[in-house]
């Protein structure tokens, strides 16, 4: 069976859940091999083994930081050459999509981004599912040329364990001068909110124009629910919340179990980022707000009175 490469998403060897999801998907099309970029692969190995990685290709080279697309693409191309895989799966992120793009051109393999599902299709083709046009359509597609390259969104497949050997295979990669020509000269870590990552959260509570810039009731409700905090573009453009929390067409696309929209009218651009959420709840003073067309439950009212009351009631219900 052909190998399927899975790029590992990790922080210093701590493997993220999306990697377990990708290894699970990879088993449908072949034999999963993890690609680990960085040091501390030993810390990652048990978890990679648990989800079915037969091999772990380890690239421990300071020139391939994983934070820039061009060196990452060269590293992946080297491993593709060595392993002739049926497919390469990467967790969707800005950098990973661009590395996948450069890899696609290098190895002449078809590229699909933001897949929500991956299957083995007829004749060995890799088949995928994804959303299009503000999630108004579900599209299935297949890769028709070369090694399939697919970036997969987080939180779309339940990880299933399947013990494998996870044999470490060190890989020497020489990064070209061209790929080294762009470099990261400074990194300022963002302050940790202690809340879950927006795209991985099971519950998202978002605030919009209706907050008037005061996100405290939104944050309080999010914390009670163990939720991530999102923001509409209007709120981000007004400088009320960071761009990294923006939900919508030009921000993050989320698909949680529960999405709570507070003071958000529901413009098409925002809907593009959240309408695949399983349950949608909205609070808005304007009963004509288009967000109410989407909701499972809506409250026409002022978020500054409704949210604190809901927060107290949820706390009481949780005991």
């Amino acid at each position: 069976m052909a190998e399927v490469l899975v790029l590992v998403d990790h922080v210093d060897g701590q493997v993220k859940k999306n990697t377990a999801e990708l290894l699970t998907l990879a088993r449908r099309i072949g034999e999963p091999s993890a690609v680990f970029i960085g040091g501390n692969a030993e810390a990652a190995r048990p978890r990679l083994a648990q989800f079915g990685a037969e091999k772990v290709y380890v690239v421990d080279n300071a020139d391939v930081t994983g934070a820039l697309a061009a060196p990452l693409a060269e590293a992946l191309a080297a491993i593709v050459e060595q392993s002739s895989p049926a497919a390469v799966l990467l967790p969707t992120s800005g950098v990973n999509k661009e590395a996948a793009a450069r890899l696609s051109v290098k190895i002449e393999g078809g590229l699909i981004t933001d897949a929500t599902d991956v299957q083995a299709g007829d004749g060995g083709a890799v088949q995928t599912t994804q959303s299009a046009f503000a999630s108004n359509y579900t599209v299935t597609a297949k890769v028709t040329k070369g090694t399939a390259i697919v970036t997969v969104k987080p939180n779309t497949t339940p990880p299933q364990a399947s013990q494998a050997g996870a044999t470490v295979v060190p890989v020497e990669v020489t990064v070209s001068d061209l790929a080294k020509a762009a470099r990261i000269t400074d990194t300022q870590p963002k302050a940790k909110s202690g809340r879950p990552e927006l795209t991985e959260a099971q519950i998202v509570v978002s605030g919009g124009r209706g907050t008037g810039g005061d996100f405290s009731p939104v944050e309080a409700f999010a914390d009670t629910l163990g939720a991530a905090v999102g923001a509409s573009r209007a709120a981000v453009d007004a400088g009320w919340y960071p761009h990294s929390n923006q939900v919508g067409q030009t921000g993050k696309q989320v698909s949680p179990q529960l999405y709570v929209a507070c003071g958000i009218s529901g413009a098409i651009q925002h809907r593009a980022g959240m309408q695949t959420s399983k349950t949608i709840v909205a609070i808005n003073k304007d009963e004509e707000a288009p967000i109410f067309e989407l909701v499972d439950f809506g409250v026409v009212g002022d978020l500054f009175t409704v949210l604190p009351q809901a927060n107290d009631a949820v706390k009481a219900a949780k005991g």
Partner: protein
Amino acid sequence: MNIVVCVKYVPDAQGDRTFTEDNTTDRAIDGLLSELDEYAVEEALKLTEGGDGEVTVLTIGPADAAEAIKKALQMGAHKGVHVLDDALHGSDAPATSLVLAEAIKKITDGKPELVLTGLASTDGTMGVVPAMVAERLGLPQATQLSTLEISGDQVKGRRDNDAASETIETSLPALVSVTDQINEPRYPSFKGIMAAKKKPVETWSLADLGVDAGQVGLANAWTAVETFTARPPREQGEIVTDEGDGGTKLAEFLSKAKLI
């Protein structure tokens, strides 16, 4: 500094975007310059405002795509290039990047200085074409930037992601993509609209670029859309008006739906 800005003409997101019978994007509905490309055009205009160099807007697409060039010229870009060829219909990202790269070579006589793009188109939303163009042209890329400074041949910008804010540096020639955080695109002025009418726009075919039709188009794409299904519209659930108990009712709903 001479800048090539790659832009795309996309179906209006406010309209009813859909697919045609051959599973490609329906481009018959009203379109416009992809919103995210306006930031790249604006940034190029700022960089050349002192009169140093010019901004060429490049697009690939059917006849209507000239509208995207027109908008950029109205904003202040100096000239436009439209790659128009029936064989391009249904081209995927790798083919698009091939044609863009060849057009950039022709525009710059093989010596690009700065290629600017938006983050992604608002129709396909893949965000992979800029990196593919950089790969094909052998250029370093500094992408997803929310600030950009160029002094001499040094390029410096900030990229914000979930975990960190990073400073990326490289040198020209380079490809840079920018986000919607970088600037506030200008509206075309009346003067700009009038001036745009006199600005040169060239229309090139694949033959003009020396690209074989067998490398592009739907039949030669490396991926194929097999099916598309409209998402069933969401059914509106219960809407209550807050009469002092809206929050309690909301909590009751969450409890009943086993979400808390």
